[in-house]
């Protein structure tokens, strides 16, 4: 059984005339690093909120179809129960940190769950070290850079030891170098701890190389779903209007001109450089 599975999931926000997502059926396997992308308004933010129960419990509105996350039916489980299994990191770093010190923020979720103090301390320290912010633990959030704040947000979600971490455009407000650090932290969590990662992002040039599974949405529907190597070089992906990594685009143009470079579609500049080196060696 997949760790996230939806069947014909549709949702309308209260007071809205149109469905934000309609007929979404996706399967995300445990341990996968999945990227969800698509133009603004495609429903990717809505689907994120379905994963941890904010939809339908917090937002109300009309939800049809089914969604099962970590073997639990989302519609039948309260958010605080789902929060033990699915962590959600939001776009704006500032607005997810409420405490006056980093470690208190990281402890927030565990405190809410009534975990005994000794255990909180251990888990907080563990999460802080994984996110690379142990030295910042006594600082107030306002003194931190955006990138550091996001790492605090990741640590606070990590402390609850969820099986899935969903990140909704976590690097929108960050510069590329800070964004890269965040993606590396996430990748470590996925590779070393086996945490299933669902990342919603526009910047495919920075993230495509980490993913096992890509889902492209448009107008609330899933347009493409599968292996990033195949999908990102396809014509359909280009038509949807997502920011195809330039390396992939280059590969595609050359292929169009009749030049086939190797079998694996490159998703990063390193991939492409490797392909080119090989192609030029054998000539």
């Amino acid at each position, binding site marked *: 059984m997949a760790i996230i599975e939806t069947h014909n999931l549709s949702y309308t926000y209260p007071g809205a005339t149109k469905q934000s997502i309609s007929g979404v059926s996706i399967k995300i396997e445990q341990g996968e690093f999945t990227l969800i992308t698509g133009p603004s308004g495609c429903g990717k933010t809505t689907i994120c909120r379905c994963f941890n129960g*904010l939809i339908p419990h917090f937002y109300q509105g009309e939800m049809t179809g089914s969604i099962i996350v970590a073997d639990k039916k989302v519609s039948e489980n309260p958010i605080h129960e789902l929060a033990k299994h699915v962590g959600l990191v939001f776009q704006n770093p500032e607005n997810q940190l409420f405490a*006056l*010190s980093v470690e208190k923020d990281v402890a927030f979720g565990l*405190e*809410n769950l009534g975990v005994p103090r000794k255990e909180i301390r251990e888990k907080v320290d563990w999460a802080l070290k994984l996110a690379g912010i142990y030295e910042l633990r006594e600082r*107030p959030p306002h003194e931190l850079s955006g990138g550091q704040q996001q790492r605090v947000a990741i640590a606070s979600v990590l402390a609850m030891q969820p099986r899935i971490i969903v990140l909704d455009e976590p690097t929108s407000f960050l510069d590329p170098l800070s964004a890269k650090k965040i993606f590396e932290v996430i990748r470590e969590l996925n590779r070393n701890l086996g945490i299933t990662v669902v990342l919603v992002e526009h910047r495919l040039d920075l993230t495509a190389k980490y993913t096992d599974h890509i889902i492209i949405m448009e107008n609330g529907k899933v347009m493409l779903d599968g292996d990033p190597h195949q999908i990102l070089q396809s014509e359909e992906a280009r038509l949807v209007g997502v920011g195809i990594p330039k390396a992939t685009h280059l590969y595609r143009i050359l292929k169009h001109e009749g030049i086939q470079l190797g079998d694996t579609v490159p998703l990063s500049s390193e991939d492409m450089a490797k392909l080119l080196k090989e192609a030029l060696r054998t000539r």
Partner: protein
Amino acid sequence: MSVFSGLKFRKVYSPIHNLDPRIKFIYVCVIFVIAILYSELIPLIVLFFLQVPFVLLARVQREWVRSLRGAGYLAALIFFTNFIFKFIGAGYTILPYDVETTIGLTLRFVVLVESFSVFFLTTSPDHLGLALEQTRVPYEFVFAFTTAVRFVPVLAEEAQTIMDAQKARGLELEKGNFMKRIRNYIPILIPLIVSAIRRSLELAEAMESRAWGATKKRTNLYALKMRKGDFALIAITATILAAAIYIRLYVPVPMLHDILASWTHTAKLLTITLL
């Protein structure tokens, strides 16, 4: 914005900062009670200077003096209103008794303000929040308090950005008559309020996503533990309170003007004798 800089708590580590806020609060309340017990000038002066060692130990002298100046205006107002009434009541004469009691009233107010000022200057908001939590205040209130404090610098920055953005569209805050100047602030207030609402929504989402409300028995990463300094403060507070009550009941407290009168009388006698 300098108004908010006073609320930006700097992490100062002093023995006073590390004291349990609950004990500090009891101390402040005791000072309050004693200040009410006495209207004579001398004990009130003693009470005032009793704060000074704490201020110095906590190294918050500059901020404390600043709050003194702030209290000064209100204190002057209290002094003059009371004095005028006493003056008229005494048949338009200045009685030393009246002067002294009025100064006493004013000083009582100052002592109150100053002791609370020391409390707030030496207690960081998270420490205060923790104390509130451990005194069984419902967590919703504590959370609202600490979150509000946490966002003060963020709001200040946002207000500055909004002002810049509107100034860049030709808004001149200083221009116009009184009414116009108030209306000039609408393009600043509305974006601030809208942003505050949007922020609350995002915060609520984040809270829910971190299991808010999972159980009524919330635990805490920190715990306030009473240490040597706290017990020392309890002892000091108890002693001061006991002494104050004892003196009030059994020891006649002289009025300053009587003492001054007797000193001038003694000085006169001495001068006469010497000459």
